[in-house]
């Protein structure tokens, strides 16, 4: 999962990036509105965490412009908690709202929920045949036994599971699993898929040759 954080307070931006990265997100940061808007428009993010008070383009304006082209889920961060502001944020196209000062755990949970919702998977537990993916605890189990996955492997499984029944291209995987600083070689993806198949069964991920990968939609 790839997340963009737009926040002008450097210390806050730093700690948010760190917290998200440690939760195995691919994360990009932007210290002002212009850069945030540019990144949000150019890249495919699974969620955007957006501060309202920003230099240059403020959060409202960024959201308004972003909504013209993208449906990326947006969580707004603000120090203003007047209902008027919240309503305005949601009406402008924000998907969720968090008032500063917030709890990091709550922020992470809200980001997870946002991503699930946008993939039409409202439950935190995803079940695919005998494989259960707990997106809250970030664990995978097969027939009741926990399977240890690396962070990359887990992210890949989660992304495919959230888009089950749909073809996921290699480009999509690159865009959603690696942040802008990642210089991963393309064949690394095949290595991860092969490792996942070893752990969760060969049929768990289906390869559509020349197109990408897919997890069956039916349980």
């Amino acid at each position, binding site marked *: 999962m790839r997340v963009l954080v737009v926040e002008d*307070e450097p210390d*806050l931006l730093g*700690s948010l990036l*760190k917290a998200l990265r440690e939760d195995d997100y691919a994360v990009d940061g932007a210290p002002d509105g212009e850069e945030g808007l540019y990144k949000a428009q150019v890249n495919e993010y699974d969620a955007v965490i957006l501060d309202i*008070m920003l230099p240059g383009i403020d959060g409202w304006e960024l959201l308004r412009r972003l909504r013209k082209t993208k449906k990326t889920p947006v969580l707004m961060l603000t120090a203003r908690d007047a209902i008027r502001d919240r309503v305005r944020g949601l009406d402008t196209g924000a998907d969720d709202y968090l008032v500063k*000062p917030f*709890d990091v755990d709550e922020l992470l949970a809200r980001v997870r929920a946002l991503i699930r919702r946008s993939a039409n998977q409202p439950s935190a537990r995803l079940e695919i045949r005998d494989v259960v993916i707990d997106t809250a605890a970030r664990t995978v189990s097969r027939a009741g036994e926990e399977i240890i996955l690396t962070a990359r492997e887990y992210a890949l499984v989660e992304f495919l599971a959230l888009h089950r029944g749909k073809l996921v291209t290699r480009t999509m995987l690159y865009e959603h699993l690696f942040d802008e600083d990642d210089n991963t070689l393309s064949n690394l993806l095949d290595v991860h898929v092969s490792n996942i198949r070893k752990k969760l069964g060969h049929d768990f991920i289906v390869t559509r040759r020349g197109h990408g990968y897919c997890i069956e939609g039916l349980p």
Partner: protein
Amino acid sequence: MIFNSIRWRVQAWHGLILFFVLLAFGFTAYHVARDNQLRRIDEELQERLAMSFHMPPPDRGPHGPPQGGRPGGEERPGKPGFRMDPEHFREELSKALQRAASSEAGQISSHYSIMWECEGKVLARSTNAPADVPMPRRAETYSPQAEGDNSPAAPRKSANPFGSFRTRGEFRELFGFTPFGDCFLVGHSMAPDLAAMRRLALWLAAAGSTVLVLGLAGGWWVASRAIRPIEDISATALKIFGGDLSQRINAADTDSELGRLAAVLNATFARLEAAFAHQSRFTSDASHELRTPVSVILTQTQTALSRQRSENEYREALEACQRAATRMRRLTESLLELARLDAGEERMKRERFDLSRIARECVELVRPLAVERGLQLECDLPEVECVGDPERIAQVATNLLSNAIHFNREHGQIRIATQADNGTVLLSVSDTGVGIPNEDLPHIFERFYRVDKSRSRIHGRTGLGLAITKAIVDAHSGTVEVSSQAGQGSRFTVKLPSK
């Protein structure tokens, strides 16, 4: 409870007054009508009697004939035979009485006549005379309050030449005595007249009641209309009490007393709302300013504590927390200072000092910062005396200088000058920075107002510097003004009294 309502009280008084006015009017009207009726009946009785004697109607008035009961009452008609022969007189009188009681053109007469001799024996009576007519006593003619006659018409009996009137039940009777002691009486049944009077009374009562009801209804309407603005005012005030400060009284007629009251109240409400809005914006701004550093501390500590970290990572987290805490300290200090200035708790000293000396000290204080940014500091500081709190004025100068440094361009200039001007002293600080857009100029001294909504945040500025500056200058009864040209720079001028 209900009688405490102004509308009800107005209505009650109005109704009461109307009721008494109507009552008095009806009573008077009734009595005037009754008097008129009685007078008409009396005149008719007199006329009939006079006609029956072939006499002209009695001359009435102050110069009328003498008292009716007097034996000489009948002398005036001038029938000399009356006096000569009692028998003839009696006969003539009886005939006259018969004529008086007779009807015209075959109608049953409503008049009757009776004649008694002095002992009370009936000499003659008309056929339609009631059976039980008592013979009047002579005394009755002298008594203004004859038996059964307590009507206002009673005193008038003295003014007729034949005798006296009396009312007996529904009969009105005119009687007199001849010089021979015989008594004669002509009567008239007032039954139809009394019925008419009852109808009049009924009609008056009905009309009075209608007018009263209409009056009450009209009064209610008028009172309601008069009260409505008060109810509007009270409803609006209640809504405002309930927290909706945007409510205003709908004052259509601004010329009436209540309209003017409504206008005054509306103006008051507007001021209240503005003050509340100002206060709530300030609180919201202050909490907003405090929330960001709190968020930094929370996220930094939560992230740092979520797993084992290297010493370096802990150090970074602690440094970030320290920066946030420093910012909060600066902010809370500024907020407290503003609160004290607002409350007037900060007593400004009043000492005479040289403004240029203070300015020079401040310039030396900020010089390292200016040098760091490659700025040139120009001083034009002739000695000027002013009165005030030198420490506070130094704070003003430092604030302005630090703004000038902060918002200047690289290698720009800052100019600080003092000047004496006609009872005041001026301290001006100008820079060569980006300037302030015209639309922002009126707000520049407002708390937390920022031209660039967040640029200053990064540089750790509170957004309260100019507000504090203005509060201090205000406390010195001075003024602070700003002029600016976009791209050229800004110039702040503080004017202080020199005495």
